């Protein structure tokens, strides 16, 4: 996600538990793939936290002060990587149903058509 070239995800908090079984996938992700993920995204601040007694989650903090929390309990490391990539790829905006697939400020170049237009 990059709005006009500016990355929108500022911080990614990876929180897991070292005891619980639901954190197994994210534990493996932390050991194996997290470094590669960090190197791919140098602009991103990745923090690994220990949160005992709770299910693991990924928390993304965006430039528009929006927080997106994704629970990754019982996920494989590949799934966790995909979740992290999705958070990185998205803007911080809420997932609203799109009105149009084409957003523009200048809808007409040659003039809007009217019924009175004489060619």
């Amino acid at each position: 996600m990059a709005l006009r070239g500016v990355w929108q995800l500022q911080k990614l908090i990876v929180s897991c538990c070292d005891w619980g079984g639901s954190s197994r996938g994210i534990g493996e992700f932390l050991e194996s793939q997290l470094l590669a993920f960090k190197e791919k995204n140098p602009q991103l601040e990745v923090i690994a936290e220990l949160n005992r007694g709770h299910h693991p989650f990924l928390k993304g903090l965006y430039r528009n002060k929006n927080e997106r929390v994704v629970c990754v309990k019982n996920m494989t490391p590949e799934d966790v990587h995909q979740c992290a990539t999705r958070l990185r790829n998205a803007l911080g905006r809420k997932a609203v149903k799109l009105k149009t697939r084409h957003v523009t400020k200048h809808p007409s170049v040659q003039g809007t058509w009217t019924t009175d237009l004489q060619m």
Partner: protein
Amino acid sequence: MANRRCIQNLNRHFQFLRTRTPHLNPQFLAPTSKFTLHPAFTPKSLHRLFNSNDINAQSVVFRHFCSKNRNDDTDEEEEDEDDDDDYESEGQDIESADDERENETAALSPEDKEKEAAEIGYKVISPLQKSDRVFKPYEPVFAVVQIGSHQFKVSNGDCIYAEKLKYCNVNDKLILNKVLMLGSKTQTIIGRPILPDAAVHAVVEEHALDAKVIIFKKKRRKNYRRTKGHRQELTKLRITDISGIEKPENMPSLKTEKKEKIPSLKTEKKEKQEKMPVAA
């Protein structure tokens, strides 16, 4: 099991061919008997033999005798073959399908294949931008661009939500090369069907999921109700530049001329409205 089934089907094909191409019989009589005895023959080598006979559509027909135990791999292979058939030359269809199959099973296709797949969606990736001044102010030029099966009328600075473009990352520069029409204030260029020299530059802004759509099925009085959630994967592109048409060079005037601008703008608008029907 799947191998044996494949070979049985291919056997049938071979026999069909034998009847069709009698002049090739002496060469192939021996192999046919061998084929029934060697289940270790991979479909690949059989395909390569077939190539010389110029079988194109028929080679894909061996799907007739599918059973429930079909693996996912074989399904993917068939889909790959279909996709390749569309855009590659006929003789190379089956070989490239085989190559794709091999590479897909390795979970990484070589860059050339990715580029070809990108061309299906009519985009070419250029390297990531690093402090480029790509985002220009608005220019009164539009283009009609096709991505996949959807067409968009696009201008500088617009945002487009297209279907997920597989082989590009966020903050990549793209060139959309399937341009169907270009237009400006004074000129319109119509492609038949594409304009070869035109290009539209875009930057990938995000790959995100759309809002959830709930697919609800119900048959009343029949105790049938199904609920399914679906989130479509979209790519947001920001259009930065349109090339291939002459752009009008009207530099916006500076602060001192603001007051003079306003009455002049109104007259210009009227003139433009009169101009456009003539030009268009």
